[in-house]
C-alpha cells in the first residue's frame, strides 16, 4: 500500500509511531496528483512547494518530540471558497480572477494549528451555486459528474490526491459529491463549525465540514474544526467534544428512524436496495427500527429556494452589477432572477423554517437518528440534465441531487453520508444518518460501527 492510499486515521497512527514521515506522505500524494489530476481536474491550484516545505517542518517538529495531534503532517485539500492567507479564493469563478485572501479563514487557521498541510484548493461549482462541478470528473468514471458543489474535494479524497478535504454544504454540497464519489461527508449542526473567511452562498443555510475516506477520519477532522468563533454570527458556544467513536459495534437500544414517506420516493431501485441492506445491517448490530413520518415535505423545496435564492443574490449584488458577464450562464441567471423575489417570499420561507424545525424536533424525540439515501441516484453522465423516474416523472438532475439533503440544511440538524455499496455500473451509493442538533457523536458512532462490519474500501481508479 502506498502512503497516498492511507485513510487519515491510519496515516496519523503511522506518523505518530514514526513508521511514516510527513515528507514521504506528502511526496506520495503529490506524485499521485501528477498521475491522475490531468484526468480528474479536482484542483484549482496545487501548492506543491508549500506542501513539501510544510512536510519537512512537520517532520522536524515530530523528530523534536512536538506532536500536535492526529492531523499533524496530514495533506489536505480545501474547497476554493475557503480563505487561505496570501492565496486566491477563486470560487472557481472568473469573477475572482484577481482575488487574494488577506487572512486565513477560521477553519484554515484551526487546521494549520493542528498541523494539517495544504496540498491545494479544490474546485467548486461556481460560487457553490450548483450540484455538478462541471470542471471536475467523477473519481470512478471520468465520463460522469463529480457532484457538487464540493466536487473537487470529494474527487480528491476518493482518488487519493488528498488524505482529507473540507467542503461546504448549503443544500447538500458536502454530502452529494461524497455519495457520488464513494467517500464520507459530514454536514455538522448549523453553527458548530465557524464560517468566518468562507465565501457564502446563503448565510442561513451554509455549513463547513469534512470529506474523508472513513467515518473515523471525519471525527478526527471535526474535532479540529468545531468550536465558537465570534466572527461568525451563527457560531454556537458549544463546549469541545471528543468526537472519535469507540471501537464497539453494539447498537443495542439505539432507535433508528426509517422514513415511510419522502426519502424513498423517486429513488433508484439499486440505491434503495443498498440503503435497505445497510439498514438491515444496523438492525443486526442491535438497533431498533422505528417507522417515522417526515413532516412538511410539501414545503421543503419551497423553503430551501425561498431562503437560498434571495440570500445568494444579495451576496453577489455588487459584482452582478459591475461584471455580470464573468459569471457562468447557469449561475448568472439564478442571481438575476433572485432580484425579482419579493421580501414576502423570503419571510414566508423563514417562517416555514421555524415550523419545520419544530416539527423535526418533535419527530427526533421518538428516535435517536434517521437513516435515508443521501441522493436518489448515482452519478449521472456529464451533460445529462434530467432523470426520468419509473412512473414517467422527469426531474432536473440538480433538483434530484438536492432533494434528500436539503432538509438538514433547513433544519440545521447534522447529517453524515457514507458509502453503502455500488450500483451495477460500479458507481458508489451513499446513505445518510440525520441526528438531533449537536448529535454528531451518535452519527459518527453508528457510521463507524457500520464501517467496521464492512471490508475496507479501495480508492477510486477511474483516472
Amino acid at each position, binding site marked *: 500500500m502506498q502512503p497516498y492510499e492511507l485513510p487519515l486515521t491510519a496515516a496519523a497512527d503511522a506518523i505518530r509511531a514514526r513508521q511514516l514521515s510527513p515528507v514521504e506522505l506528502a511526496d506520495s500524494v503529490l506524485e499521485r496528483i501528477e498521475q491522475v489530476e490531468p484526468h480528474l481536474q479536482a484542483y484549482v491550484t496545487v501548492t506543491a512547494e508549500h506542501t513539501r516545505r510544510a512536510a519537512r517542518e512537520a517532520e522536524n517538529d515530530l523528530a523534536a518530540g512536538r506532536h500536535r495531534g492526529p492531523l499533524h503532517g496530514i495533506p489536505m485539500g480545501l474547497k476554493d471558497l475557503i480563505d487561505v492567507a496570501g492565496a486566491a479564493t477563486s470560487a472557481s469563478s472568473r469573477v475572482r480572477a484577481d482575488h487574494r485572501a488577506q487572512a486565513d479563514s477560521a477553519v484554515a487557521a484551526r487546521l494549520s494549528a493542528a498541523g494539517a498541510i495544504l496540498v491545494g484548493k479544490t474546485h467548486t461549482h461556481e460560487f457553490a451555486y450548483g450540484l455538478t462541478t462541471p470542471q471536475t470528473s467523477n473519481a470512478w468514471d471520468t465520463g460522469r459528474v463529480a457532484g457538487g458543489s464540493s466536487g473537487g474535494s470529494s474527487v480528491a479524497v476518493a482518488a487519493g490526491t488528498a488524505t482529507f478535504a473540507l467542503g461546504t454544504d448549503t443544500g447538500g454540497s458536502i454530502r452529494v459529491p461524497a455519495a457520488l464519489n464513494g467517500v464520507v461527508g459530514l454536514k455538522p449542526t448549523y453553527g458548530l463549525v465557524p464560517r468566518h473567511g468562507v465565501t457564502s452562498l446563503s448565510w442561513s443555510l451554509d455549513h463547513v465540514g469534512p470529506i474523508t475516506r472513513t467515518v473515523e477520519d471525519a471525527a478526527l477532522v471535526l474535532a479540529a474544526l468545531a468550536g465558537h468563533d465570534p466572527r461568525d454570527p451563527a457560531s454556537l458556544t458549544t463546549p469541545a467534544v471528543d468526537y472519535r467513536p469507540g471501537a464497539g459495534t453494539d447498537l443495542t437500544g439505539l432507535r433508528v428512524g426509517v422514513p415511510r414517506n419522502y426519502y424513498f420516493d423517486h429513488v433508484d431501485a439499486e440505491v434503495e436496495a443498498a440503503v435497505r441492506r445497510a439498514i438491515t445491517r444496523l438492525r443486526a448490530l442491535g438497533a431498533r427500527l422505528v417507522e417515522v413520518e417526515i413532516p412538511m415535505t*410539501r*414545503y421543503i423545496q*419551497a423553503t430551501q429556494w425561498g431562503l437560498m435564492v434571495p440570500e445568494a443574490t444579495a451576496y453577489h449584488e455588487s459584482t452582478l452589477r459591475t461584471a455580470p458577464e464573468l459569471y457562468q450562464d447557469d449561475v448568472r441567471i439564478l442571481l*438575476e432572477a433572485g*432580484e*425579482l423575489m419579493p421580501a414576502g417570499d423570503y419571510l*414566508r420561507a423563514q417562517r*416555514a423554517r*421555524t415550523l419545520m*424545525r419544530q416539527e423535526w424536533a418533535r419527530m427526533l424525540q421518538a428516535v435517536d437518528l434517521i437513516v435515508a439515501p443521501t441522493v436518489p441516484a448515482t452519478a449521472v453522465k456529464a451533460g445529462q440534465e434530467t432523470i426520468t423516474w419509473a412512473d414517467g416523472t422527469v426531474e432536473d438532475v440538480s433538483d434530484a441531487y438536492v432533494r434528500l439533503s436539503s432538509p438538514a440544511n433547513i433544519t440545521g440538524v447534522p447529517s453524515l453520508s457514507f458509502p453503502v455499496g455500488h450500483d451495477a455500473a460500479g458507481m458508489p451509493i451513499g446513505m445518510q444518518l440525520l441526528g438531533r442538533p449537536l448529535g454528531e457523536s451518535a452519527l459518527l458512532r453508528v457510521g463507524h460501527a457500520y464501517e467496521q462490519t464492512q471490508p475496507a474500501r479501495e480508492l477510486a481508479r477511474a483516472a
Partner: protein
Amino acid sequence: MSSAELTPSEAARWAAHAGLPLPADRHAAVAATADHIHSVVAVLRELDFGETPPAPAYRAEQENHDAAV
C-alpha cells in the same frame, strides 16, 4: 401563460426597480427563471403561520445567556 407570470418587459422593469438594469437579450430568460422560482416558492402561501416568527441566522439571546453562565 397565467396572469401571474411575468412578461419579459415586466421582468426588465422589476429588475430595474431593484437596481439591476438588464440587457434586452436577457429579459425573456430572466422572466422564465423568475417564474419558475415563483412557482416553487408560492406553495408556502398555503401555510397558516399564525404567530410564527422567522428563523434567523443570529442567536444573540442564546449567546448572551451562555456568556452570563
